Structures are given as C-alpha cells and as structure tokens.
C-alpha cells in the first residue's frame, strides 16, 4: 500500500487508531453501564435514566465468547477483497465493561485456531483503500498473535 495515504477509521467515531486502536464507547457515570457504539443522550438502564454519559475507550483485551466464519462473500456495503477468502468473526467478552463486542478476526486466523474462553486482543487491519486514504477497521486476534499482526 502507498506510504503517502493516511490511515483512517472506515467509519469515524466508532474507534480510534491513535495512539493505538481502541473502540470508543461511553460510560454512565451514575450507574456504571457501558455502551458501544457510544450512547450520548440518556443511559439505557431503565432504572437509571441519567444523562451523564462520558465517552471512553473500551478494554483492548477480553475472552472469546463465541466465534464463527463467513465462508461466502457478504453482500454490499461490505467490500470484500478479490479473490474472496473466508474469514473468521469473534464475539469477545470484556471483563471490565461486562459486554460482548463483535469483530472480524485478523486475516489468516480461521475457526480451527479458536476456542471459546481464549484470551483475545484488539488490533486493526485494512478494510479497503480509496484513492487518497486507507480505511481501517478493528479486528480481534488471539493474544500473542496481535503483536505479530501489528508489525505487518
């Protein structure tokens, strides 16, 4: 990929890439509930109803709740690399936030390499490139694999 293109989140506001990739959620300062994507108006806990919601970065590590794969090319608006290669998806439970977040698994890691309960780490990869930018997305990687991936 071209060195001159800037790397940006494929959808602004959901996650940041600097200084390292992190999902941007929000936390209710009254009841402690977390939300992803960010909730900004009112806490969704019906017994709280607070409007004190602060943006926060979610934990970058968690445990694999479950996993699967996409063996057929998903329809638009997903832009699949050609030729299409099956990829894995992971639902990861975050200990501190007590919620489960879905994401693609890094390229090259398929379901055979995954087990429910294993530690997972947040990382990022290219989703697609436009003429001027590299659009990035968050991904999950088995812990240990993430550091290797980041050096690519």
């Amino acid at each position, binding site marked *: 990929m071209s060195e001159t293109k800037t790397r940006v989140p*494929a959808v602004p506001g959901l996650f940041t890439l600097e200084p390292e990739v992190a999902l941007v959620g929000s936390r209710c300062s009254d009841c402690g509930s*977390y*939300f992803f*994507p960010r909730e900004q108006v009112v806490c969704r806990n019906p017994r709280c109803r607070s409007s004190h919601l602060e943006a926060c970065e979610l934990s970058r590590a968690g445990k694999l709740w479950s996993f*699967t*794969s996409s063996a057929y090319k998903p329809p*638009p608006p997903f832009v699949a690399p050609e030729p299409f290669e099956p990829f894995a998806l992971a639902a990861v439970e975050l200990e501190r936030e007590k*919620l489960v977040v879905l*994401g693609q698994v890094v390229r090259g890691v398929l379901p055979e390499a995954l087990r429910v309960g294993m530690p997972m780490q947040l990382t990022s990869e290219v989703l697609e490139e436009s003429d001027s930018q590299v659009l990035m997305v968050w991904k999950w990687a088995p812990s240990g694999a993430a550091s290797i991936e980041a050096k690519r």
Partner: protein
Amino acid sequence: MSQVVILGAGMHPWGKWGKSFVEYGVKAAELALKDAGVEWTDIQFVAGGDTMRNGYPGYVAGATFAQALGWTGAQVASCYGACATGAQAIDTARARILAGLCDVALVVGADAAPKGFFKPNAGDRPDDPDWLRFRLLGATNPTYFGLWARRRMELYGATPQDFAAVKVKNARHGLENPNARYRKESSVEEVLASPIVSDPLHLLEICATSDGGAALVLCSEAFARKRATEFIKIAGVSTVTPSYPSSVIEMPNLATDSWAGAALPERSFRDSIAFTAYEQAGVDPKDLDLAEVYDLSTALELDWYENIGLCAQGEAERLIRDGDTAVGGRIPVNASGGLACFGEAVPAQAIAQVCELTWQLRGQAGARQVAGAKLGVTANQGLFGHGSSVVVSR
C-alpha cells in the same frame, strides 16, 4: 381473559415464484376467507404485515391488500416488526376484537424476497447498526447463527450431527406439506457434506429466502358462536421487548448491553418471549402438544426448545437425539417442516406458524398430523427486539 377465535387460515405456497407480494397476500386472504366462510365485504378490520423490500405498497401493506381485494371502507393497520411482523398484525387485530371495536378481522402477510443474503437498506447510514455490521464486519445473518451454534457446542456438547438431525427431522415433516417450498428428505451425511456457510453451520442448515403469503380470519367468540360450537382460539400473544441488560449478541448489533451497571434479568429475552404468552394464556409449557419455532438455523431450533420451556437449559440435544420433537414423539416441533422447508418470507412467517397450529388443532394436517393436538405455541424473534409468540388452543 376472553379469547379470540381463529375462524379461517390460508397460505400461498412458498417458493421463488417471481410474482408481486400483493398477489401472494391476496391469494392467502381469499383462502382464509373461504376457510372461515366469511365474505371479504364482511371484514371490518384489516391488519397487513409490511414488507420493506417492495416499495411503497410494501410499507402500507394493510391498505395495499385492502385495495387489491376491493375497497370496502374497512378500518386498516399496517404493521412492521421485522421477522415478528406477523405477530404484530395478529396482536393488533386481536386487540381490536377484544376491545369490542370490531367483530371480524383479516390478517395478511406476504413477501417477495431477493435471492441470497439479506442486506441493509441502501445509502450510507452509519447510525444504523444494520448498515454498520455489513459495512465494517461483513456480518451476515448466518454469522450470528454461527456464533450461537458454536456457543452451544462449547457449553452443552452439541455436535454437528445434532444440528444436522434437526434438518433431517424438519425435511421429513415438510414432505407432506403442500405449502412447503422444499419437499425432499435429507440425511445427516448429506447435510454435513454441504458447504460450510458460517462455521459450524452448513448450507442445508440455514434457511433460504422465499416468496410466500399467509392469512388468518380472526373474530370474537360471539361472532364465532353464530357459526359453530367448537373453534380454535388465540389464548395469548406476546410481542415482548427485551429487559435491560440483554447479554446475548443479537442481529444486527455490534455489541450486547453491559451488565456492569445493572443485574442481568431473571429471564433472557428469548426465554421471555413464549413465557409472556404462557402467562397471558394461563398455560404451562408441560401441557403443550406441539410447537412451531423459528428455525433460522438448525442449531437455533435447539435453543428454542429451552427458551420455550420444553426442557431445561443444556438438554435440547437429548430431545433431538431421543426423537422427542419429531411427529410421533413427546412434543413435536415444526411439524409444518419449519423454515427449513419454507424459507423466510418475513411478514408472513409468524402468521404461517399460526396457520399450521390451526390446521393441526383441527386435525386437518394430513400425514404430518400430531395426534390429538389441543394446545400449541409459536415462537419467533424480530430484529431490534421484537418478541413473537402465540398460544393457540382448542
């Protein structure tokens, strides 16, 4: 509570017919009216199940069907609740009847579905989780089915053979159903030899998209008594939403609720769906004779066994292995053949489930008849938190 009578049921056969959804709905409505022995001009209220895929007529399905059948001045509602659309339409008509606002109502749902994966509405819509999941993750509906299936394998020791056995059972049930799209037996080997779509689920374990239509004529007990002495009744309808926090990852969301700030509810969303209808009807799941559940995937049918109270959590594999849920077994599930044989026609499917229970409870289900059926339940779930369950009794 006073009950609402199911006077008539009708379906357009499901498949890929290449016609307008209006045609499917009108055909189903005409069959339901004929079955009820009621004229279209006698119908006081029409509830249509909306479809989002067929332009403006689809968004105003109640009026679209009413116009196609011929304007009569009947009152109308158009309902949408994703896969629970049919339950919304049934509930709306039932509430009108129970409130004494009308005596007899027609409920219709129909769809003409596209080929392949469902995808979000057009346009860049980053505020729509349905758009986000496709755009960023390529997370199709089978992705979620795969997550739930893998979780079952891990927690309860489900095997690929258990999942395949659900398809084998439903395919056998659907053989004798003239409204079913697929009428062909499957073997476990055949299912497991079909390509993986979303690990661990194979092509033959994930329901197709279909065209189809289903309709019901509902009326008050007083109206029904003028015509017959024995009838099939709707004893409960649940359109329940989840209770916060909901901890299972559900279509189309990127994440679950957080349980850091509030305790998990006593019942999960899926557990609450049928139980809300049971409570309304005053029945216990152990008294059921049969159930029609939403088998988007084979593995999901096993989840429903537990969610609707046919067995305790983790025991669904035993039910399928023992043949309990096959016709002839202790508690047959999806005697119609289910979505495995029908495929999805979104606004019609919750209505179609009630059609099947109606025919079963009348003893009109032919070779797939569940002997002596008197009490049945349907279960279904619509995107964005629409519960859908109907208890039907003799």
